[in-house]
């Protein structure tokens, strides 16, 4: 389904759309309040951008360095070209340890690889332990936001879900009560788990360790109990130096949720004695994206979600309308590179207002890349017919000045005089949810002739 169609469905409930819009805008405002408390905020963004840009330009060397240092720490490093290989690697590790119960903390990468359904088919119980992720897992839905997976759900819906799945009181919807119920339910899972798997926020080439940021403490409750820990990372998560974390940990939580730092910033370097630690490095199209000069900067992303919280389209269409693992502006520049035809509508899910680029903590030129993807989509013939034909017709008219002037006159006259039922007929798709401007009496050309 195209983004526009999915967004139309989302917009059918106007009150809910407004609620969603406000919830995200609230987070954007929290981000602003935190950002202004740091006098060197813009310097940090520039540094973050330069460090990631440097890393991308030397990524192979840093990966080799990272691997060597991790191995020296007693960590096993695996390489996966695509999702299938990634899932097989994880399954093989789990099987070797006879794991039946796996607890996971937040990982958009394993969403990207559809790891959960794969492992479940192989008979392994997988429990997402981030509260938001657990909610969408119980609801059998994908996350709608990369930082707040259940931001699209109301507390009453979560109350109903928990009543059905966790046995909470019917009709109870107090967030404190529901969170407590989830805490009890998940504590049991933590204590029973045979292995823990986490995503990775940063991987440090210099030290061979990985850093995971959470507020709930679920990564640590998972990792430190069983005898097996697995960390899955996209290869762009690398940073060269430990000290670079000083820049990124100052940027990440402030940009994401408007906190000065996440509650927990865990630095995993070596397994506990008697335990094993594995790191899986995934490509899955990232090296291709690195080869696209106009789009490689998208790999600088640190997954804060600020571009979603600020985007007027995301806020009013919801994360699910994008049909991708990473929704919103950043998702709309990352995913066309994976399947251009399938995701051809995403770069158009934007007003090109540029707010995403303004808040991006690593200065990705998101709106410029959205515009550039549009060019490629048009050139490769993936525009919907209505858009293709209207563009061709417009081009034909613009190439004929006399005809253009004559049509302009007709249009000004008819917009004034025709009844709106005629102007907003089914042929006017642009006008479905927008008002045409008031028609001026004369064209700019006529005005110039008189006044110029």
């Amino acid at each position, binding site marked *: 389904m195209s983004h526009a169609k999915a967004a139309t469905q989302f917009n059918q409930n106007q009150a809910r759309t407004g609620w969603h819009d406000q*919830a995200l805008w609230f987070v954007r405002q929290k981000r602003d309040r935190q950002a202004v408390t740091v*006098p*060197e905020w813009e310097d940090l963004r520039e540094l973050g951008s*330069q460090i990631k*840009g*440097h890393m991308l*330009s*030397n*990524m192979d060397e840093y990966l080799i360095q990272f691997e060597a240092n991790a191995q020296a720490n007693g960590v096993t490093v695996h*390489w*996966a*070209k695509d999702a299938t290989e990634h899932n097989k690697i994880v399954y093989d590790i789990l099987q070797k340890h006879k794991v039946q119960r796996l607890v996971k903390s937040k990982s958009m990468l394993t969403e990207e690889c559809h790891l959960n359904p794969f492992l479940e088919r192989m008979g392994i119980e997988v429990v997402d*332990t981030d*509260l*938001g992720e657990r*909610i969408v897992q119980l609801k059998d839905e994908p996350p709608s936001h990369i930082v*707040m997976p259940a*931001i699209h*759900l109301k507390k009453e819906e*979560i109350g109903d879900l928990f009543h059905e799945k966790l046995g909470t009181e019917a009709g109870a919807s107090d*967030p*404190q009560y529901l*969170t407590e119920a989830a*805490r009890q339910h998940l*504590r049991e899972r933590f*204590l029973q788990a045979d292995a823990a798997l986490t995503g990775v926020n940063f991987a440090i080439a210099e*030290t061979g*360790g990985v850093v995971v940021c959470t*507020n*709930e*403490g679920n990564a*640590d*409750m998972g*990792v*430190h*109990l069983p005898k097996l820990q697995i960390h899955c990372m996209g290869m762009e998560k690398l940073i060269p130096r*430990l*000290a*670079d*974390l*000083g*820049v990124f940990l*100052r940027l990440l939580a402030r940009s994401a949720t408007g*906190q*000065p*730092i996440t*509650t*927990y*910033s*865990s*630095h995993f*370097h*070596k397994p*506990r004695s008697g335990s094993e630690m594995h790191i899986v490095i995934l*490509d899955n199209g990232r*090296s291709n994206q*690195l*080869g696209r*000069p106009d789009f*490689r900067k998208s790999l600088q992303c640190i997954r804060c979600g600020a571009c979603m919280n600020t985007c007027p389209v995301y806020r009013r269409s919801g994360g699910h309308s994008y049909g991708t693992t990473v929704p919103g502006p950043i998702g709309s520049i990352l995913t066309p590179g994976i399947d251009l035809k399938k995701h051809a509508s995403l770069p158009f899910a934007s007003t090109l207002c540029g707010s995403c680029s303004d808040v991006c903590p690593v200065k990705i030129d998101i709106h410029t890349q959205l515009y550039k993807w549009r060019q490629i989509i048009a050139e490769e013939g993936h525009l919907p017919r209505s858009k293709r034909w209207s563009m061709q017709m417009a081009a034909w008219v613009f190439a004929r000045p006399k005809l253009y002037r004559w049509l302009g006159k007709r249009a000004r006259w008819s917009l004034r005089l025709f009844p709106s039922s005629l102007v907003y007929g089914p042929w006017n798709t642009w006008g479905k949810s927008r008002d045409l401007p008031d028609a001026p009496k004369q064209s700019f050309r006529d005005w110039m002739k008189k006044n110029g």
Partner: protein
Amino acid sequence: MSSREDILKAIKANKPDLKPLPELPQFPQPVEDVGEAFRAAAEGVGAQVISVNNWDELALAVNERYPEAKKIAHQIEGLALSPLDWQQINDAHQLADLDVAIIHGEFGVGENAAIWIPETILPERVLPFITQHLVIVLSKEDLVWNMHQAYERIGTEIPGFGIFISGPSKTADIEQSLVLGAHGARTLMIALMPSSQNV
């Protein structure tokens, strides 16, 4: 060819020309009193900050704040709270019913109330998370202003596991309502002490 070789080859072929790695500058400290800033930041993230002069005052404060606590873990000689017998603990899962854990913090960060805890000062890695309530003892002098200084202080001595903790466990995953006590410690009490006492 292995996936490793394929991936590295693809990156080598596709990466842009080398860009410079920026030096990390020092940024000025915008506040005069880092201790005050730390306290304000800690309260902002939901922690309680107390000042104590000796272990007796700490024991009193813990008893007062957590009167129901039955199982308390600490390794502080001279702290008059009957501690868990670590000889009896041979598996981290045995800590599941722990009420209070009292641990040292290596240093705190003024700008965000994060406290660095390397595993070298933890008897078990899971301790600060599995406990219902966490108390971190921090020397008043062991404060830096920002995260750059924090990593400078850590230097190259990176432990097998280390963590910055800023406040109690929390979540806002249900309609953005802030709830303290998601999976980790429900409360965090930071006890600031003169360093001569904190040994």
